């Protein structure tokens, strides 16, 4: 097979996840998983989830109402200041997590589902199915992710649903590639062949033997991709292709402040919000990856 540039992208991303086959679900109770950095990132994620869940009670003001003077720097009344319409930045930040977190989960879940089905079919059935599916994936991977997402979102018109759709369209091929490659190796495993020899129907063989043994790397990757999804969603709405104003979305809030950086607090705090959550997801994903990879695990003290 010739190596296409897009192959290389996927392979370099995929190879990190492929090493250990699948001990997701193995116990996290022991060993090196609970390192300080992991605990901190898990704490940040939990904190953001709680903020999102209890936003109406935690946020001091209504995120869409003018509650003070325009562009006030951080003060006792408005900890993170107010934006150009006099809205409380802290409240908008907290309400913004209600958009970013569920949407990121939705994007990753849909991409995983679409990519998983395509990758499974490609890996299991091979031949023409594989060729068609993987060339389709190449087609998408050939473009820089964010640019293609912008084009798709712009074509569909700016809205929350279209932004999610655009991001699913650009990210499913990653999952398809990873799942395909693990299905390719799992399908040849002796337990799958033995099961088929024993008369397991194809679908049951896929559900019982192939999926559980090939889902691991993709699941690990989806943890890291959660951060990426938040980032890309923010990028789209920064460009005005995400949720419509006046919705409190982190990317849109940064865009609002970017016109006049003298009012640094308008952009800084949503930026920090994105930074913390994306880093937390990346670190958590790395930790899970390390934990599941026996080689890196052995390198550390047990």
């Amino acid at each position: 097979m010739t190596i296409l540039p897009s192959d290389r992208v996927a392979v370099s991303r995929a190879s990190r996840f492929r090493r250990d086959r699948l001990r997701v679900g193995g116990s996290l109770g022991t060993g090196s998983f609970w390192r300080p950095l992991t605990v901190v990132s898990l704490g940040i994620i939990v904190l953001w989830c709680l903020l999102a869940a209890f936003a109406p009670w935690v946020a001091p003001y209504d995120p869409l109402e003018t509650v003070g003077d325009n562009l006030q720097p951080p003060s006792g009344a408005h900890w993170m200041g107010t934006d150009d319409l006099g809205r409380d930045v802290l409240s908008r930040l907290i309400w913004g997590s209600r958009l970013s977190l569920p949407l990121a989960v939705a994007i990753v879940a849909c991409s995983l589902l679409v990519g998983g089905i395509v990758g499974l079919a490609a890996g299991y059935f091979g031949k023409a199915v594989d060729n068609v599916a993987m060339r389709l994936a190449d087609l998408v991977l050939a473009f820089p992710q964010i640019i293609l997402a912008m084009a798709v979102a712009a074509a569909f018109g700016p809205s929350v649903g279209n932004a999610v759709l655009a991001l699913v369209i650009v990210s499913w091929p990653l999952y398809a590639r990873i799942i395909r490659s693990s299905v390719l190796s799992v399908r040849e495993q002796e337990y799958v062949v033995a099961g088929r020899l024993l008369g397991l129907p194809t679908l049951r063989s896929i559900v019982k033997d192939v999926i559980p043994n090939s889902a691991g790397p993709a699941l690990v990757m989806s943890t890291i991709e959660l951060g990426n999804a938040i980032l890309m969603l923010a990028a789209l709405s920064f460009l005005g292709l995400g949720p419509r104003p006046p919705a409190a979305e982190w990317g849109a809030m940064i865009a609002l402040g970017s016109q006049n950086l003298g009012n640094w607090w308008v952009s800084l705090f949503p930026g920090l919000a994105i930074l913390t959550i994306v880093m937390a997801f990346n670190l958590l994903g790395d930790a899970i990856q390390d934990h599941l990879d026996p080689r890196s695990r052995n390198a550390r003290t047990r």
Partner: protein
Amino acid sequence: MTAKVLELEDIVVTHRRSGGPAVQAVRGVSLSVAPGQVVGLVGESGCGKSSLARVACGIHAPTSGSVRFEGAPLEPLRMRQRPAADRKLQMVFQNPYASLSPRRTIASQLLDGASEPIPREQRSAEVSRLLELVGLDPAAGSRYPSQFSGGQRQRLAIARALAAKPSLVVADEPVTALDAFSSAQIVQLLQSLVRELGMGMLFISHDLSLVRAIADETAVMYAGEIVERGPSEQLWEQPTHPYTKTLIAAIPEIGPVKKLPGLDEDLTEPAAADAGAAATNGASA
């Protein structure tokens, strides 16, 4: 020739490789197994044993030649569910660590082979029966494969094959991955199962002494062809083909002279001997 369980006729297997010449792994092999008979197939690595085993079991279709199982042509495995009649032909694989899914309980995997759905209340009885058959704890059904040793896993793989009540088992190097003690146990188990259940077996190994212990009839394979075939004892006592003689001579022996089996060269040249002695001492220390 009428009462054979498995008949292979003129099997040719050619592996195509991209960017290289095709490899002819099996070149016209004919072989048959009678009910209750154990046929051993010996040969060195790469001589086409496993390719032949996969064809004999219906995992792959032969490039040419015919496979008949219980008198009917054997359908190679496709996307469709395997026909019930063919499920009486089962296989035990070489690697006990790969032949059980790490993510399903033993009970669930053993029940894959049930010919018809078993009512819920009889399932545990069937699992215990199969586990007892291979000499394992009948209560082990709820455990996962990672909780068993290599030898135990091979027993589980055998139990799984037995669930389909096979009339023939193709055992492709079933003990190669095991140590001498476990492999002896597995061979003994297979032997007693063959006798107990009256099934035939095609036992594939590179180890002639193992095959001698278990097989009624032995075929020696070399470079994709069967070069000699006959009752095991006779083949052992009076090998006619030079390759068989080499194989027999290559069986490792513990003796006073240091030498590697299969190599005629005298290895006891001083430097090598010293290094070897050092290694042995190190190992025993």
